[in-house]
């Protein structure tokens, strides 16, 4: 179990990197009952004049939570998560979630995160979502309403 003494402000959160393929996007559309054609239909995508099928922005929220839970383990609870969209992400691109600890409380951490798109050279091509901020409860798998 992770505790406050394990963390310091300024610590980096291990990054999470994920390539988002068209099949992943179709699976996501099914899992969320969101069949908006911009996420998978070439004809609709062409009519919208965007370079390719657009990744549902809500995916970034899910990945930011995954980044936190993969790092802190099952005994943590993401109580709050805010994020702002900056740029579209398209099918077959790779994103990376990055984060830093900005506050260490008795029973919680506050993290600043962002989601970036990785370019062909391995560098940051653009920011997909930022700023993002999470408040995470430590030592509990469930929230205050459980």
């Amino acid at each position, binding site marked *: 179990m992770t505790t406050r003494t394990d963390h310091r402000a300024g610590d980096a959160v291990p990054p999470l990197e*994920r390539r988002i393929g068209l099949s*992943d996007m179709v*699976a*996501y559309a*099914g*899992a*969320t*009952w*969101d*069949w*908006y*054609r*911009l996420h998978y*239909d070439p004809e*609709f995508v062409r009519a919208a004049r965007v370079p390719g099928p657009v990744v*549902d*922005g*809500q*995916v970034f*929220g*899910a*990945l930011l*939570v*995954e980044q936190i*839970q*993969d790092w802190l383990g*099952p*005994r943590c*609870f*993401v*109580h*709050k*998560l*805010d*994020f*702002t*969209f900056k740029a579209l992400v398209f099918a077959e691109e790779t994103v990376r979630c990055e984060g830093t600890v900005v506050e260490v409380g008795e029973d919680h951490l506050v993290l600043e995160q962002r989601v970036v798109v990785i370019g062909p050279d391995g560098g940051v091509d653009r920011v997909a*979502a930022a700023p993002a901020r999470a408040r995470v409860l430590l030592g*509990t*798998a*469930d*929230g*205050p*309403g*459980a």
Partner: protein
Amino acid sequence: MSLLTDEVRALVGRKKVYTAPEEFGAAAGRYFGLAIGDHNRLYSDPEYARAHGLRGVTAPPTLICETNQYANLPIPPDGYAGHEWGIEIPGTRKVRGGNSYTFHRRIRPEDVVTATWEITDVAGKATRSGAEMLIVSSRATYTDQDGGLLAENEETIIFVALEGGK
């Protein structure tokens, strides 16, 4: 021309309520985990979940704010079968601003979700290039079959004027 008209101002306070026709189900969370590539055993292994203090499996937290499962709406030509306010403002393009989630507890397979959406604010602003914007803020409150609070989701939709900027 201002995008912030009296008609737009009158949208504040408008509500829509959706109650799921059935329990959330364990498969919903497991499927969402697979779809996003999150193989956390809290979503698939009841014994593991119980060992860490839960009653059983749960779902990735953001699913409750992302799924259209409980909206129970027909599929329109563009495929989006989720909550919408149906606000159309000619001469603008619509973009998503962001989300602010608060999670009160993890969802359980037996939960029957009610989502209550409300428009909380409308505001006019200008982009850096001088184009007019209209920001529509909404809040969704997700509750269980006993009225217990599961999560809240504040989101902004921005309408940006296609002409008028530098």
